[in-house]
């Protein structure tokens, strides 16, 4: 394919966005990849393992980062947000706000800045389970491998990092920049966020430190996480002897998320294997409405189910309390088959919270469904959506989806060439 005038703009640098960018660029298209965070990788970079292979997401990320590094057709903007999209002849015009990183490309990631940084804040990367400095590397295998400063965390007037940096890479007065990008097509792949568990107080979140979300569980299991990969109770750092998973914590619920988040069943089965591996004596109980493991995930389901000390109970957890007698957490549920009330004591309760599309900050011109997922009408020829901002789905499906979106965007390039 001949080199084209206009690039494809890809919004979001997680699995879907990276894939869309790479697949189009390797076919010959120019691509601008626009990422909100300081590093690519998105939500999967926070996961310990994938189901059903139980392999690390960083393995595939590394390959994708290498593909990006060697591909001159991909341009990356980090800390960048698309504020407006307008149609124009031959494509779209995107107004992008690039937030300052306060660390420029001279950074070598030598780490001198972190050594002197006096400010510590709860680390959102670990959902507050640990702390980080105001200047930080997003994660150990991050791409770009470059530090960033959270200015809201800086102590007033402090410039310790700037003084310590041997390479003049720190610019504490950097200002936001606006950039206009003209693109032949747009792929929106802004991904998802975990459902806000603070709305699930009936399930104990926020009231008991040992009630955590599945997203936090991934960080506990991750080698680069707050516990170095150890599954422990946040309250006292002890190994749990009984773990309860609460499926559909917010999902399939008219008061919260009225759709199914698709991945939480397989995710909890996967997390049960973390418990199994580290705390072989722990009892695992999974409360569910339906176990949804389509296709060959069924093999994985059966494999986990065949393990010891794991039981699945069809029933919705009504509330989580602390037992007055034992002081332990208690999940109160109804067994849907017998209709009986059940209570299970637990040291750690994992809420399988669902997927909320990251569509709030996108320009209003992009149509949403009633749940906030993007639903661009098929008549719009030039804007395509991929991944979890369109529909809750697992990683492999996201990547397929993004590859298909890359083709639709690529068709726009071919069309615009034909008309040029």
């Amino acid at each position, binding site marked *: 394919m001949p080199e084209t005038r206009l690039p494809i703009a890809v919004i979001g640098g997680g699995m879907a966005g990276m894939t869309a960018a790479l697949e189009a660029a390797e076919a010959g298209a120019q691509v601008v990849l626009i990422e909100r965070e300081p590093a690519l990788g998105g939500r999967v970079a926070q996961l310990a393992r994938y189901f059903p292979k139980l392999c690390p997401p960083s393995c595939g990320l590394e390959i994708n980062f290498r593909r990006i590094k060697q591909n001159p057709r991909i341009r990356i903007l980090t800390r960048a947000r698309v504020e407006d999209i307008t149609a124009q002849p031959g494509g779209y015009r995107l107004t992008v706000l690039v937030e300052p990183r306060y660390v420029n490309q001279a950074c*070598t990631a030598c780490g001198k800045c972190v050594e002197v940084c006096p400010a510590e804040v709860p680390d959102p990367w670990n959902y507050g389970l640990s702390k980080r400095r105001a200047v930080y590397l997003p994660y150990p295998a991050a791409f770009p491998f470059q530090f960033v400063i959270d200015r809201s965390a800086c102590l007033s007037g402090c410039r310790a990092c700037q003084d310590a940096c041997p390479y003049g890479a720190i610019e504490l007065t950097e200002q936001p920049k606006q950039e206009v990008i003209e693109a032949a097509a747009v792929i929106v792949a802004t991904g998802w966020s975990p459902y806000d568990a603070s709305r699930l107080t009936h399930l104990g979140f926020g009231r008991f430190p040992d009630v955590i979300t599945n997203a936090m569980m991934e960080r506990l299991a991750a080698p680069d996480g707050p516990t170095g990969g150890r599954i422990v109770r946040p309250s006292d750092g002890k190994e749990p002897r009984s773990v309860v998973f609460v499926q559909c914590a917010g999902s399939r619920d008219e008061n919260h998320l009225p759709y199914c988040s698709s991945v939480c069943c397989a995710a909890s089965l996967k997390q049960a294997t973390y418990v199994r591996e580290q705390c072989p004596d722990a009892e695992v109980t999974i409360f569910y409405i339906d176990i949804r493991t389509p296709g060959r995930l069924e093999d994985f389901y059966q494999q986990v189910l065949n393990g010891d000390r794991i039981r699945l109970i069809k029933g919705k957890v009504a509330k989580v309390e602390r037992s007055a007698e034992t002081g332990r957490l208690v999940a109160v549920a109804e067994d849907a088959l017998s209709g009986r009330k059940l209570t299970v004591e637990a040291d750690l309760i994992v809420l399988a919270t669902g997927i909320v599309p990251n569509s709030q900050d996108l320009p209003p011109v992009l149509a949403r469904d009633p749940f906030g997922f993007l639903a661009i009408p098929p008549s719009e020829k030039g804007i395509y959506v991929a991944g979890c901002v369109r529909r809750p789905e697992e990683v492999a499906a996201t990547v397929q989806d993004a590859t298909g979106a890359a083709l639709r965007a690529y068709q726009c390039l071919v069309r615009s060439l034909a008309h040029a």
Partner: protein
Amino acid sequence: MPEGLGVYICSGCGIGEAVDTQALANSARSKAVSVQLHPYLCGPEGRKLIENDLAATNGGPKVNRVVIAACSPRFKTDVFRYPGVVVERVNLREHVAWAQKAGDEDTLAMARDYLAIGIVKAQKALVPAPQKAEISKKILVVGGGLAGLTAALEAARAGYEVLLVEKEAQLGGFLAKTRKRLTFQPPYEQLADGGLGDKIQQVLYHPRIKVLVAARIRRISGQPGQFDVEVETPEGRVSDRIGAIVLATGWKPYDASKLGHLGYGSSPDVITNVQLEQMAANGGVRRPSNNQPPRDVVFIQCAGSRDPQHLPYCSSVCCLVTLKQIQYVREASPEARVYVIYKDMRAPAQYERLYRRLQDHPLNFFAKGEVTGVEPNGNGKLRVRVENSLLGPTAVIEADLVVLATGMVPNSADGPAIRALRDAMIAAEKAESEAQRFEAIRRVEELRHHEGTEILNLDYRQGPDLPVLRHGFPDSHFICFPYETRRTAIYAAGTVRAPMEGVRAEEDAAGAAMKAIQAVEMAVRGEAVHPRSGDISVPEFALQRCTQCKRCTEECPFGALNEDEKGTPLYQMFRCRRCGICMGACPERIINFPDYSVDMIASAIKAIEVPDSFQEDKFRLLVFMCENDAYPALDIVGYQRMAYSPFVRVIPVRCLGSVNMVWVREAMNCGIDGVLMVGCKYGENYQCHYATGSELANTRLANMREALQRMQIEPERLRLVQLSIDEYHKLPQVLNEFAEYVAQLGMNPMREFL
């Protein structure tokens, strides 16, 4: 002095504090025309040093090979990019300065060895020349159902010629015969009209799509960009040259005659969901026994699916299909009671809305349970026995129509199994003993069901079709790379790849079409596809020295090597992924890349300075690391400032499978005390990006251990460790343990002879 080598050493990021960079520079002077030191090599001034030497603007000798001794080659790639020049990166930062004791003599020795290795590699490397060839960009789509039609249309809309081959006389596949289809539009509760009329018309009248119906593929020979396909049609044989292939052969319903336990065959009123669909499309739902609208309908989910006796997997669509078909029943009999007996209702994502709407209907009953019997009750109805449901321990439903939600079986062929069958047949014929013949015949019987199943008829040594992953689906093994395939430029899409509903199949087909287009475009540029995307290096085969041992042809995971009658490899560059597994396999060392060769690494090993036999407490351990996972993991070890034995010398390799055992032997001959290979996990859930590389390495290493034993060297000096990229925290221990183990063995006896 080799002409044109420039060595650039950075002393920034702690390198200068860890090692005496001046001493390091001195160690390189005899081998290079220019050796430069800089405290910030990736900065503008440092880069200028290199650029000036490359352009020879300062009157010095012109540099055309560059060794950059600084940070890991994974970083600052955009800064140190010099097209057309050999660039070798020496990792002094992550692997030396950040992981070793500053100022220690062992640390300096390590840095010196790494620099020496880098210099040898740069001297031995050639800049690969891009390979140009005549490439057909036409896409072959096999299968004219929803996925095939979509792939064809999408590729054509991107400007590519398409040849669509359908085995039936009409296009459309299964979905052409449906009454309604699921859609994925808000509010996600509505159905669209069935049939594929529009799509079929668009395909038939598209100027870039040629359609062959009632057609079968007789043969596909050649390689991506240059496949020659022969198709047999009622009008005669059609030949064409194509570039890439989308396999979209779809599915067939599970054979309901095997579902006697669910009443199939016992009454005309026990039907499958496929029969119900046809009935709905042809006038409406009626009881087959009396042609009356049904009043009590039971849908039995997972009829054959999620059942180890039948289909062990979930067919993914049957729950949604039932939700659709309940509405057909409702159209025919608004007052009918509909029961759905399920294991789990699977209506993912926004399809939950459809499920919820149907749940809200007062005459629809959904219950988890197990159907233990379906039989005629003697007065024209059917008795459905349900156990362990919320209807009670045992419940009986009197139904007048029972619908079995049967699942999907892929229309696939297992290429390697077909090849194994052919081999076994030949072996049975040529057996030299009764025992051999008996074994071969047993094998033939075991594989007999693959006979005549060929679809693509690929002319590949590894068999005529894609390998299947599980349960007959030629799916990808990789979660991050669902289109990864072991046959370059051939991509499965739709229900042949995995069970999926129509909306998904369309998206999947678009993705597969993208990959097919990308494969031909990369072939035009002479580039490898994923995972070494963009690599233009191509191995050379010095065939005059080939002994026809067939190791390379058998072990290539991608079928890139065919064989002639004698067993000489016939290399097909556009099938090749450049992993180097063939290079690792070749006992004659005749397979080499311009920038990665047996001689290059063997020479690099020789450049490692082995302590003489008087330094009994110093050891040298050669570590081959997979560049995709283990090597980045060691970078993270450095970033985390975790320390490990200063005696290790790491050489990154494209895949452990590319390690030629000559290197191990060379290391032993040079007095290296131990060789460790660190690569990806193998086995069922393998993580090797080239499927079999690390496992092959393990087998080869086992053979090498035996060879060492014959040389009176302890075989334990060779070890292979499987490591995931996220297990970086285990890596220092892996290295230290091996170092301690080798220390207990003592130094390599070969060191006495150095």
